[in-house]
């Protein structure tokens, strides 16, 4: 932290101001959505819309789960994100160990290629994936999402895990080898426990990316019960009516747990993002 002697009085005023504006600006839309979700549609579109819900109603939330298959959508999102994450973490850890520790031909090129692939424009591969999934009859199934999600999740996982595994000092494994441990033994008893925080963070980040994905989910699912959360929310609107009450309630239902989870895991997430960005 800078010593006070280098900070001007102007800065001393600006800094809390900028911070306050930032926090307020970032969080206000959420608060407004939260408040509005408890209002009746009549109040929502009254001019001027009051701040506080009056009357306070839970009707929107009931409607979301009663009249729509939203619970199903939530389940879909969870299943797809969890499965993709699990597959990627398992396969990715193996590959990352090889990249981090073993002699592999053309390592740098491969890693660069993998990084490049994780940044593929999804729109560029939508067409063949769509045609293939349609031919296999997989549209509206879980594999229809899990398989395409591997496109960006797999490279991302390998990249992040390689960065983490690299940070574990090789001397620890060497010491174990001197003591006669096998490679598998050192992997399970020394590397894995040390890599656990990194693996956990990678899993969180991968899960979030899958959870938020829109384009593939939009294209590869066509009916309500197969949809994931982002697509479902956007599709709430019908031809003539936009059910804002339900939409906002659904947004809150999705955002609150995510916000809670993110706040609980914040240190991991921040470290993971910074790590992957700066030291990868």
């Amino acid at each position, binding site marked *: 932290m800078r010593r006070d002697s280098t900070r001007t009085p102007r800065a001393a005023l600006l800094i809390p101001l900028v911070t306050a504006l930032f926090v307020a600006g970032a969080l206000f839309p959420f608060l407004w959505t939260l408040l509005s979700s408890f209002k009746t549609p009549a109040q929502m579109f009254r001019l001027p819309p009051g701040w506080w819900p009056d009357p306070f109603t839970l009707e929107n939330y009931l409607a979301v789960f009663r009249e729509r298959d939203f619970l199903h959508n939530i389940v879909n999102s969870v299943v797809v994100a969890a499965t993709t994450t699990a597959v990627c973490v398992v396969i990715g850890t193996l590959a990352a160990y090889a990249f981090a520790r073993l002699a592999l031909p053309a390592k740098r090129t491969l890693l660069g290629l993998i990084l490049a692939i994780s*940044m593929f424009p999804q729109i560029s591969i939508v067409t063949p994936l769509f045609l293939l999934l349609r031919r296999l009859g997989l549209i509206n199934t879980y594999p229809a999402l899990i398989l395409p999600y591997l496109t960006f999740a797999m490279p991302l996982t390998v990249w992040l895990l390689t960065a983490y595994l690299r940070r574990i000092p090789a001397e620890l494994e060497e010491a174990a080898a001197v003591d006669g441990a096998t490679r598998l033994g050192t992997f399970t008893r020394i590397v894995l426990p040390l890599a656990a925080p990194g693996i956990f963070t990678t899993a969180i980040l991968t899960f979030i990316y899958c959870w938020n994905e829109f384009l593939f989910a939009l294209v590869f699912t066509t009916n309500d019960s197969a949809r994931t959360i982002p697509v479902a929310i956007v599709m709430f609107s019908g031809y003539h009516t936009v059910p804002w009450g339900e939409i906002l309630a659904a947004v809150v239902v999705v955002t609150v747990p995510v916000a809670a989870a993110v706040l609980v895991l914040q240190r991991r997430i921040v470290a993971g993002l910074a790590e992957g960005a700066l030291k990868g």
Partner: protein
Amino acid sequence: MTGPADTVTHRRTLSETRLACLLVSPALAVIGAVAIYPLLSTCWLSLHQKNLKMPWVAERFVGLANYAALAADERFWGALVHTVFFTVVSVGLELALGLAIALALEEVVGRAAAVRGLVRAAILVPWAIPTVVAAVIWLYLVHPTGGILTEALRNLGAPPETTVLLARPATAWTVLIVADVWKTTPFMTLILLAGLQTIPRDLYEAAAVDGAGAWQRFVRVTLPLLRPAILVALTFRTLQAFMVFGHVYTLTGGGPGTATETLALLAYQATLTDMDFGRGAALGVVIFFCGLGFALAYMRALGLRLEKPEET
């Protein structure tokens, strides 16, 4: 190729390379199947005419005809201009804002846990929610009748025609950009803040002792050392902004008319609505190569820092 950090006591034998290949092959197989193969397939498809809405026209090889059609299509050039405009303005704003906020937060981060918690929340929650959910929130904020921002504008005396923000291109673009900046500045801030925290304090003190003012310290010490972080953040965000889809789809659908149509949206329209797969594939290839161009340019600037110095 391998250095001292690599295994010393496990003998570096052929079996190690074989083990490495074995461990890497599932990941590479997956990546090859779901990423590389479809990309090649798209390239191949873009050289064909395949329009499911005209089933009487057989699918056939047409060489670069789809690309020629794009080059002659005003709507394509419009989308390209829109996309570049959106990318440059959004990412530029995010960088400037993100840097300003990161500089302020650097002081704050050491303070009380409550403040730190709020700041982290402000950074992480917009990042963690789906882009389209954020877009839906903004759709509500600018709603013609119920939107709080619309209401605020009206109270500030804006003429009624201008308050239906999404109905006019200029204001629609403003909403698109503001909403995007809101969603992604926190991510920029995070990366830049992490970068700022790696700059040793002594450098600032030394510069202050040498008589450098705050601005000079910023330009001479902060910016150069922050360069890697800035480039990483720019790379990710530029690519993301260039390929923007869900954000625009939800907020404006490309409207009014095609005033806010981006390349990805055009490609989506071609593939899913018009079912002109050849054209959609061609657009996909164009987008891919543009993205690749950006990525390569940034990576060269970054110096391709893939490995630590002691390894090869």
